């Protein structure tokens, strides 16, 4: 936020010269502020450093939205010999008093970060999940449910809201909760915090599934087209979009150079082989109409494997 600006050019964005601590107007070169203090951190902290020699004097960044401004004083570890009492133990114990509501939140945030770490989710999704969890926690309408289940459901919702949905099975794989329980919590949370989630689409999963199967982008594009066309022509009523996506990938990969078996696709997508077969059976009769016009067939439609 530009609180100060050049007197001659009030619209100009000031450039910060951090070597000298100046803020300079780019139009006329006037030094508007000098000796401005860099508010970044003094020392960088890495996760693999041992905790013994942490020269930072201010501690970790505050978690403002979430834990309620935890400005407390902590007694540090004994540094010299005088810190230890008669029995060899530290004279002054560190009694860090975390409030009980914060404790549940903090452990949930830790669990969420572990889960998202396992599937390599970006920071934005983790932050959104944390925000959702806090909202749910404050509302207290899901009190009896296990925190792990609520955390997993929040993660699912966050992925959906960010436009990169993960299937329930994928979330289940990184959490210890059953799919049933996550589904139940999901429904309750949606109703409790009145969140808006859009319907899932086969196309949302194409890039992830195809890259896990090492399929080229041409096959991925074709599979997306096939899946959308199949839904448009209503060939697969009542089938989950994941199953349709898996069958579309099977069809597209079998028509190209990079063929994948139903078992491989089923493993990646979390869909049973039989389900892929059933959806493929529904899509097979209209295979000619499903492919895009500019698709290069290595195996022609007539030679595609019969369902």
């Amino acid at each position, binding site marked *: 936020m530009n609180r100060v600006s050049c007197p001659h050019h009030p619209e100009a964005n000031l450039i910060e010269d951090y070597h000298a601590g100046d803020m300079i107007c780019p139009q006329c070169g006037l030094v508007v502020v000098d000796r401005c203090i860099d508010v970044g951190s003094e020392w960088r902290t890495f996760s693999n450093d041992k905790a013994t020699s942490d020269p930072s004097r201010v501690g970790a960044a505050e978690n403002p939205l979430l834990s309620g401004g935890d400005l407390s004083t902590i007694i540090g570890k004994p540094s010299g010999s005088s810190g230890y009492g008669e029995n060899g133990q530290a004279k002054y114990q560190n009694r860090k008093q975390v409030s009980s509501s914060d404790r549940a939140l903090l452990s949930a945030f830790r669990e969420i970060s572990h889960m998202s770490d396992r599937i390599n989710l970006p920071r934005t999704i983790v932050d959104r999940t944390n925000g959702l969890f806090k909202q749910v926690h404050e509302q207290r309408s899901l009190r009896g449910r296990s925190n792990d289940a609520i955390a997993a459901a929040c993660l699912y919702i966050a992925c959906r809201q960010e436009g990169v949905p993960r299937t329930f099975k994928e979330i289940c794989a990184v959490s210890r909760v059953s799919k049933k329980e996550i589904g139940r919590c999901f*429904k309750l949370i949606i109703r409790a915090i009145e969140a808006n989630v859009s*319907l899932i689409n086969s196309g949302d999963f194409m890039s992830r599934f195809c890259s896990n199967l090492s399929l080229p982008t041409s096959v991925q594009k074709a599979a997306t087209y096939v899946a959308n066309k199949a839904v448009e022509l*209503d060939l697969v009523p009542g089938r*989950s979009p994941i199953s349709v996506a898996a069958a579309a990938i099977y069809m597209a990969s079998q028509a190209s150079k990079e063929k994948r078996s139903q078992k491989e696709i089923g493993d990646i997508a979390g869909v049973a082989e039989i389900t892929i077969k059933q959806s493929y059976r529904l899509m097979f009769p209209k295979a000619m109409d499903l492919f895009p016009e500019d698709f290069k067939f290595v195996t022609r439609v007539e030679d595609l494997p019969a369902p």
Partner: protein
Amino acid sequence: MAGDISIKNLMSTFSVCCPLDLKKIGMEGINVEHKNGIVHKRFRNPKATCTIYSSGKVSIMGNNSEEDAKKTARQCARMLQKLGFRVRLNNFKVVNMLGTCTMPFGIKLAQFAKKQPRDKADYEPELHPAVTYRLKSPRATLKIFSTGSITVIAPCVENISQAIKQIYPLVEPHSTKLQEDVIAKKKMKKVKKQTRRKLEDSENTGGGKGSRGGTSSRKDNKSRAPLGVIN
């Protein structure tokens, strides 16, 4: 025009006004199962299951009509009376019933769910293949399938038929023609059920009479609430 609604399952409760010794019931009762501090008693005629709690509350599931439910309640109370408890059939209430109805067309669920307000319609294809639609003014929960079948859970038959009347104009714009094999499957299901009933019938009558005249005799076992023409 929608088809007939058939009531498939009724859930009702009543109370005998005294505490019950479940162990005694479990040992001395007929067709009972004592599990986890609850006694389940199965009745054959009409076919239903009673869940008996030690507080004296009984819940009955599986009946096809309200009269049958009352009959089962009376049978249950009689059985408990015979075992020596001072029972009274108190507060018999039909809590919920499940009715099914089939639309003559298929339904595009994704389109339908998009048009509805989020608090009423719930569609999660990963979790359940049907759209769960909750109505407030006749209190009912409807599950709408892509084949056009709709199941309604509501406290009374009136609610069920009103709910279907309300949902029909919402569902009709999203209708599609059913695929051939789906229609064939539905017909097969009906035929299979009819032949299964014929077998059951002939079993019940000791195999002497063979099949009764068609399946028309089965109509009185299920409550049918004909809807009539919907405009």
